């Protein structure tokens, strides 16, 4: 067997599609062989997941925004693994506006806008803190951003245990529920909020414009491909690193506000247990999109549809009497795991050809 680098890689957009289909096929087989899950039930759950945009909407919005955020830094080869921390910091900022200012009672609309905006600023600052050592000391951003996720968790944990501990929480360690004025209104028939929808559209268009028509966008792309060119063109590489990572954190931070205003309405201790892990799932979305902006919503839709499919599968099989342990909640992990695996394999196959040659001796 020989592995040969392909002269011309396969068209890049084919890979995620094949990965998706093959991953689903493999999940069906794994679930059938290992757990005896009926392929019909699994497939019908998947079809259900993909055909219910209203149900999928909320996760879709959050994952798309995180995907866009990570895309900006990934384009510059800055591997922001800190989406989770930036979201947590955004969550913290939004909670502050909602619980500790008078704004929700004075002007709910303005309060909601400031929750989102402040969450973005907080996410941006958190990313900036990781960007500075990367830019000026050359510290690898992957461990730095990863560690900062935990620091963000613990800062919020300290706040929730201490000064932010709610007064009406029955000894649960959590903040009070945010005023109903700043609970984001829902789009009828869907799980998403109007705030989330508007933010998504603004960010999609904004980032598209940023990457296509601004010097910052162009420089981020070139930063990812050849920072030496930036240097010889007279553009500061450290500055571009900071800009790319900060924009990424800025966008990711907004998800913290959406999570608060449309999902949980308060922070519960320990926050690392009560997180939706959008910051990590977003990495998967960004990779499945092959770092193409327009593919981010598609990748996000696929991932969120699979979550819904996991729920639907449990509903389908959960009713059987006498059956204690079904595939249950683990099915989502099987889906995502299989797709990631296929994706990784296919990325290799797209660049390398595997030939089997019988040698004549």
């Amino acid at each position: 067997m020989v592995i040969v680098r392909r002269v011309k890689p396969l068209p890049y957009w084919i890979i995620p599609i094949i990965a998706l289909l093959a991953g689903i096929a493999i999940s069906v087989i794994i679930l059938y062989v290992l757990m005896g899950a009926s392929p019909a039930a699994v497939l019908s759950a998947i079809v259900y997941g993909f055909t219910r945009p209203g149900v999928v909407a909320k996760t879709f919005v959050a994952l798309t925004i995180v995907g866009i955020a990570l895309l900006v830094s990934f384009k510059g080869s800055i591997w922001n693994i800190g989406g989770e921390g930036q979201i947590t910091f955004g969550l913290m900022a939004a909670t502050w506006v909602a619980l500790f200012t008078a704004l929700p009672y004075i002007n709910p609309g303005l309060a909601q806008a400031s929750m989102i905006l402040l969450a973005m600023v907080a996410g941006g600052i958190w990313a900036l803190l990781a960007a500075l050592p990367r830019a000026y000391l050359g510290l690898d951003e992957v461990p730095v951003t990863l560690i900062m996720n935990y620091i963000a968790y613990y800062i919020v944990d300290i706040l929730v245990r201490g000064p932010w501990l709610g007064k009406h929480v029955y000894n649960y360690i959590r903040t009070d529920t945010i005023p109903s004025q700043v609970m984001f209104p829902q789009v009828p028939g869907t799980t998403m909020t109007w705030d989330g929808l508007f933010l998504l559209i603004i960010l999609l268009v904004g980032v598209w414009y940023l990457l296509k028509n601004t010097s910052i966008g162009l420089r981020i792309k070139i930063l990812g491909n050849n920072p030496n060119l930036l240097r010889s063109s007279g553009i500061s590489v450290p500055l571009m690193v900071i800009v790319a990572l900060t924009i990424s954190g800025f966008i990711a931070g907004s998800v913290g506000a959406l999570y608060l205003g449309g999902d949980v309405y308060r922070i519960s201790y320990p926050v690392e247990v009560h997180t939706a892990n959008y910051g990590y799932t977003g990495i998967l979305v960004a990779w499945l999109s092959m770092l193409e902006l327009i593919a981010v919503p598609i990748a996000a839709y696929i991932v969120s549809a699979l979550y819904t499919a996991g729920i639907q599968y449990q509903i389908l099989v959960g009713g059987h009497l006498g059956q204690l342990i079904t595939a249950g909640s683990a099915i989502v992990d099987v889906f995502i795991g299989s797709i990631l695996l296929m994706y990784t394999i296919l990325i290799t196959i797209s660049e390398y050809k595997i030939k089997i040659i019988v040698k004549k001796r």
Partner: protein
Amino acid sequence: MAAEANNAKPTFLSPPQEGKEPIVSLRGITKRFPGVIALDHIDLDIYPGTVHALLGENGAGKSTLVKVLYGIYTPDEGEIIINGRSTRLTSPADAISTGIVMVSQSPQIIDTLTVAENIILGLEKYNHFVPVTKVYKTIREESKRVGIKIEPGIEVWRLSYTQKQLVEILRAILLGAKVLLLDEAITYLPIEEKKRFYKFIRQFADEGGTVVLITHKIYEAMDVADKITVLRRGKVAGHLDRKEATIEKIRALMFGERSAEITYERLPTAQPEPNTVLEVKDLWVMGDFGGYAVQGVSLEVKEGEVLGIAGVAGNGQKELIQAIMRLRPVIKGKIMYNGEDITRKTTYYLRINGVGYIPDLPAKYGVSIENSIIENIAVLPVYSRGIINWDKIRELTLKLIKEFEIKTPSPDTPVKFLSGGNIMKVLVARELTVATNLLVAYNPTRALDEATAIKVRKIIKDKVLKNKVSAIIASEDLDEIFQISDRIAVMNSGKIVGVFPADKAKREEIEHLMVM
């Protein structure tokens, strides 16, 4: 030995050399890539004990042929015969096991390991149980025999490019190489070092080894090869014996009708204006590994003048050029641009004030090959501040593509799909456009074949004349320096050791100063 040149079917007429069988024979090797035939029925015989040069301009198919020989590509058609036996090479390991070892232009060794560790890697006969002292002894003996001096305990990152290439060759020999493929392996070496290499190559061949020298530099082939095969557009243009080869003949084979364009006459000169554009006063700059690489250099460039800086690589030219471009800190001294002190200014300041820059190794420092031509042009701060006007830049790009005859399907094509010459043209086109005042360049044509290099030089000189731009061009290629400069400064050990008007400079004198 019969003449083989210019024969349509050379293989039929190539008789066995002095009774020897060829060690490697290629018969009808064809390799197709989507849309191109990279190799079109190549026939070639390589005899033991010879240095066989493969010559060709950029894109002639040399690299593909080497990769076929080294098992990286498998040919679509044809046969490889090694030691009289038809062989399939499916990986470099296969090739190595038959005694074929390649050394490429970029050293494939690991920087953080020592020389000895790098050499042991991949050598099966040195397993875990061989004492270090024995390995060191072997390396020392072998390197002495080859005529090079390398301390096996030194970490590779401390070595110069030349030394790294020597380590590669040493490893190849210890791998038991019978056929050494040198893929542009010595093209980028300084002249002095090259001469030592020639000696080694000669010795290796005289002891019965075989060297296949792949290059686009005609004089390299002329200096050392016994036999020369010229490739042109994927076909064998001709086989020549060294004794019958002349530069003109080879050029004719390599470039066809374009060979007429090749000339080493000095390009026309303009009368320099009196005002000084660039002035460097007593400049001190640190090198990469400590110590002063530039030691008190002073020079000036007048308006409309080309100052050439001649010198053997590693004598501070790189650091000087980078300091002028504000890419390297100045320890002491002053740089004046248009009468203004720029010692503390940034690269950005120069780039928006009419300074063009062609760095060394353009694919690495001058362009981003994953990005499109248009993006590679738009990246300069003069073109993009805030929101980019793509219409304007597209217009400019199309104009440059036409003006510089850049061969590309569209301005949106990623640069990596262009040939080396065209990549260089993109860079030169961009930099000449922004160089409204001063062009700073380092080895601007090194990666190019002769015909293209001369064309690029003409374009640069033309621009300087027409727009009264000044230029400071450092180059390790004396032909280039003589062809393009109005004045020549010779740099040696971080100092300027002599300045001559180009029309009165004597080549021997400059060469002497360079290596003094």
